[in-house]
Each structure stands twice: as structure tokens, then as C-alpha cells.
């Protein structure tokens, strides 16, 4: 279960909008190399992870990857 925090982990302040660059950046949202896929991969790999240290690590990393969607 997740709780949403209404803030980013790192400040973003776009001074010069750049649509060409934006089209590259948005490709990191979904798709095979996107944050959405990355976060779900980490979070589902937990279920077959035998070591508690790595269950914890996959949980933390998967959660942070979900947070990155708000940046994009």
C-alpha cells in the first residue's frame, strides 16, 4: 500500500521550455525503459526474493522509481 507525498524528492525548475528535449524525456515515462516499468519490475521481483535485505532494498528502490513519474 502506498501513501502519496505532495512533493518531489529534488526541486525541478524549468526556466526554458524545450519541446524537442521534452519528447525525449517523456519516453522515460512508460515503455520498456520507462519509470513505470522499472518500478513495477522492482516491486514484483520482491515476491521471489529469498533475502530480507534485498526484499527491503527492492521495496525502497521500486517506491522511489514510482516517485520519479511525478518528475516526468
Amino acid at each position, binding site marked *: 500500500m502506498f*501513501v*502519496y*507525498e*505532495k*512533493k*518531489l*524528492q*529534488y*526541486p*525541478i*525548475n*524549468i526556466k526554458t521550455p524545450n519541446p524537442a528535449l521534452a519528447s525525449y524525456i517523456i519516453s522515460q515515462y512508460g515503455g520498456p525503459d520507462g519509470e513505470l516499468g522499472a518500478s513495477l519490475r522492482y516491486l514484483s521481483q520482491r515476491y521471489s526474493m529469498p533475502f530480507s*535485505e*534485498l526484499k*527491503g*532494498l527492492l521495496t*525502497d*528502490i521500486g517506491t*522511489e522509481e514510482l516517485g520519479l513519474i*511525478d518528475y516526468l
Partner: protein
Amino acid sequence: MENTGTPREDCGYRSGLLPECAPLALTYTPMQQGSEPAYATNDALSRGTLFPGLDLPFMNLVNKTPTHSTPLRELMAIDFVVDELELYLDTHKNDSEAFATYQGFLKLAAEGRERYVARYGPVSQSDMINAKSYTWLNDPWPWDIGANAEEG
């Protein structure tokens, strides 16, 4: 495989493909040690890691800490250190020194959040426990322009 120290001209290494006679390379991944030194809170957020030992800036381009700080940035910096210590403790659960540091930062984060929420509104919905109305919907949201402006 012979290794003369200079690439062989007949090897075709300029063609952009991996040539047959390419020398082998060894990769090396250092393990993070216990009781690592740490950056100051604000520097950690700028550097992107709490641990100087893990700080390998791409092309030596270093992100500088802004000279002026905002309440949101301070909260982000403390929360970032908490996240970093959680990742470290996931694989070093018996490092009692790091755990004490972690607890200290949890306390700082809780206090910092209380001050921030009193002034700017809820960060999570449970922060509205003392609010007079349902302020969760107030702008800005994290993706709004200016929500993260350095001048706050």
C-alpha cells in the same frame, strides 16, 4: 592473446564494431563499506548521494548547492538523507552507528515536516489532522510550474 599496449592497425578497431582481437577488460564493482563518512544534508541532495565514496560525477560535472535555501528544499534535503540511510541500512542492518544517525534524521524530518505543514499545507493527507478544512486540493501540485521554484 598478445598485448603490445597499442591497438593493432590490422584489427579493424576503427570500424565501430567489436573486433575479433579486442582485448578483454575486467569490470570492478566496489562493495560499500560500513561506517561510511557522509556529506552534509544539503550537499547530499545536490551531489545525489549521501556517501562521498559513491560520488562519481558524470564527466566530472558537479551539481552545486544553491546559496539560498527554501523551507521546501530543506525538507527535501532531510528526506533525501533519510532515503539514503534506508537504502544503506537495508544491506547493513547491524551498523548501529548508522542506525542512530538514521533515527536522528527521522526526528529532524518529523520536526521539519511539522513546521513546513503549518506554513504551506499538507504534504500527505494525514498532515491535515489539525487543519481547519480539507486543504489537500490547494495548488500547487508538484508538477505545476513554480511549485519547486528556488525562491519558494
